């Protein structure tokens, strides 16, 4: 049968030709579909370190030093060689990733437990801010913070934080994941310059990509400058009001800005208004995006169904739908329980029907008390040891996080990357209805599984 021979011969044409045809599959000549769904989320954390006893006498002229950060070089979305090279040169230890995950569940289950409103929290942002503080702590304070972060020693923390930073950093035409840190230092107190350790400032730049700013906390402009910095790092999505306290000598700010697009777009024409059932029995109208995958993976565990949607830069947005009669807070009641819903359950495959409300909201958390109840004690006490940063007596006076998240549809004209619908598949071993019309949990994970954001959407109509 000759045509079969040609068929077989075509099967074995050279690899590169097959790859070329596949890549080109994703490119359309005309912008037939211009509606995209995108995700944007960001977080800022502000951590103030207060001064108790002004130090005396110094002859080091380091105050006022300003170090600017050179961010990793941006590379194009399709530049997979660079992506691979960066990953290979900056290995992130599996144990470190696991530590961040455990940290995320420990803090997430505590921070998200406050029910009654939408909440969006960035574990990674808090981890970086605490990590930066830890790198300047000594003695018991350092030991306690390291224990809290789940990292064995300071070398591991700084090296792994740096490698993780380089691996995660993304800034291309499709998406962004920009983590920014900064240290704001008081330049003088009571007429005397305050000395910060040069080593700390240097390693902050090298390992945490933290820029340093020398300021006067007695002036209102300092608060404005910090707010402006946050605004710049988060593409204008956050513009917090920051009040400064003359007692402060050091503030650490961390921001995470994330933007990406779904690999499989939602067809805007299928978006329709429907009812969202609130926990208190009320009903709200919301716009739901609809999409069905004829064959996709999902997981089912006690009290929940979990499924994820891929984002183009290899990250993923995970949705956890509580079973009927189960509250999201039952599923977030402990660190172990939160781990179970994000990682546990039975893995299944089959048709997944999505119905997701569009939402757009912000959250503000004051985290000092929560962190205190979770075991950070020494760092908040006046006898905290931050001698790695300064010889003045200093302790953490407050920790705040502000975040914002939006899942939205935006137009991208003539994009270089679209995904075509493949023919539908059969039903292998199950089916999931991800009909998110009642309070649900979500998370955004980076390509290596670290949790960038977690949250509870109680009411998509609420900002």
């Amino acid at each position, binding site marked *: 049968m000759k*045509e*079969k021979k040609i068929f*077989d011969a075509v099967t074995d044409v*050279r*690899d590169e030709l097959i790859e070329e*045809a596949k890549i080109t599959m994703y490119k359309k000549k005309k912008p037939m579909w211009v509606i995209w769904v995108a995700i944007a989320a960001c977080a800022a954390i502000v951590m103030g370190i207060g001064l108790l006893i002004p130090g005396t006498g110094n002859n080091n002229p380091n105050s006022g030093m300003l170090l600017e950060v050179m961010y990793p070089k941006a590379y194009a979305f399709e530049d997979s060689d660079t992506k691979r090279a960066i990953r290979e040169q900056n290995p992130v230890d599996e144990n470190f990733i696991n530590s961040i995950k455990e940290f995320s569940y420990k803090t997430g289950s505590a921070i998200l437990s406050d029910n009654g409103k939408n909440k969006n929290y960035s574990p990674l942002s808090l981890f970086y801010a605490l990590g930066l503080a830890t790198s300047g702590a000594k003695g018991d304070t350092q030991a306690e913070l390291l224990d809290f972060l789940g990292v064995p020693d300071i070398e591991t923390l700084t090296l792994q934080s740096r490698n993780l930073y380089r691996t995660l950093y993304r800034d291309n035409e499709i998406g962004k994941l920009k983590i920014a840190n900064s240290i704001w230092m008081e330049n003088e107190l009571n007429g005397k310059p305050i000395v910060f350790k040069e080593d700390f400032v240097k390693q902050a730049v090298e390992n945490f990509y933290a820029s340093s700013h020398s300021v006067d906390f007695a002036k209102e402009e300092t608060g404005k400058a910090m707010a402006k910095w946050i605004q710049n790092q988060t593409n204008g999505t956050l513009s917090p009001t920051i009040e400064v306290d003359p007692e402060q000598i050091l503030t650490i700010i961390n921001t995470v800005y994330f933007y990406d697009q779904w690999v499989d777009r939602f067809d805007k024409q299928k978006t329709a208004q429907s009812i969202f059932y609130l926990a208190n029995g009320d009903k709200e109208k919301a716009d739901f995006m609809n999409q069905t995958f*004829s*064959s996709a993976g999902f997981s089912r565990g006690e009290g929940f169904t979990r499924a994820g949607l891929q984002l183009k830069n290899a990250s993923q947005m995970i949705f956890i739908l509580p079973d009927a009669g189960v509250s999201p807070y039952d599923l977030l009641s402990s660190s172990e329980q939160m781990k179970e819903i994000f990682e546990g359950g039975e893995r299944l495959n089959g048709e997944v029907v999505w119905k997701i409300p569009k939402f757009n909201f912000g959250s503000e958390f004051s985290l000092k008390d929560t962190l205190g109840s979770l075991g950070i004690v020494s760092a908040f006490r006046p006898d905290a040891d931050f001698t790695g940063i300064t010889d003045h007596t200093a302790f953490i006076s407050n920790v705040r996080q502000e975040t914002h998240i939006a899942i939205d549809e935006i137009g991208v004209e003539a994009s270089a990357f679209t995904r*075509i619908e493949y*023919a539908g598949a059969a039903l292998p071993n199950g089916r999931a209805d991800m009909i998110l019309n009642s309070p649900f949990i979500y998370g955004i994970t980076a390509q290596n599984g670290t949790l960038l954001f977690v949250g509870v959407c109680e009411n998509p109509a609420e900002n």
Partner: protein
Amino acid sequence: MEDREIINLYWSRNEAAIGQTHTKYGRLLHSISYNILSNHEDSQECVNDTYQKAWNAMPPQRPDSLTAFLGRIVRNLSINCWHKARAQKRSNGAKELLLELAECVPDKNNVEKVIEARELSEFISDWLCTLSQENRVLFLRRYWYGVPLKRLAHEYGTTPSKLGSRMYRLRQDLKATLEKEGVSI
């Protein structure tokens, strides 16, 4: 997950390899198979068998292109499945593909040699490289990925009949080139 990491999972005999393969390639493989068999159940079976074959083949194999590697397996399984099914007189997508490909078979008036399957693949690869990128991609999307003409036409913003005559010219060109080289199948 990167292909290299998936292949490493196979090499380390980690069963997550199958899951990762399914997540990344499941739908593509299913569509290739479905385009040949026009039957979801049979396609699903071929895709599952593809995972089994991949599991047995890696190691020792370490493919350069996982797309091509998995795609070939699913094509081979699907066409074999089609032959079995044809005996039971089920009609489907492969019939169209094979009928169209039959047009590329050269006439026997100028035969110098009967070509081996492997040589024929190389020959077709070379021929593809002489085409414009658009035609090359079009040919493979139709005859390797098996995408139906109607869908291709939609994607290229043209009508099925216009695209059909373009495909016809491509087949004639392959046939003429094979004849010119004095190749028989």
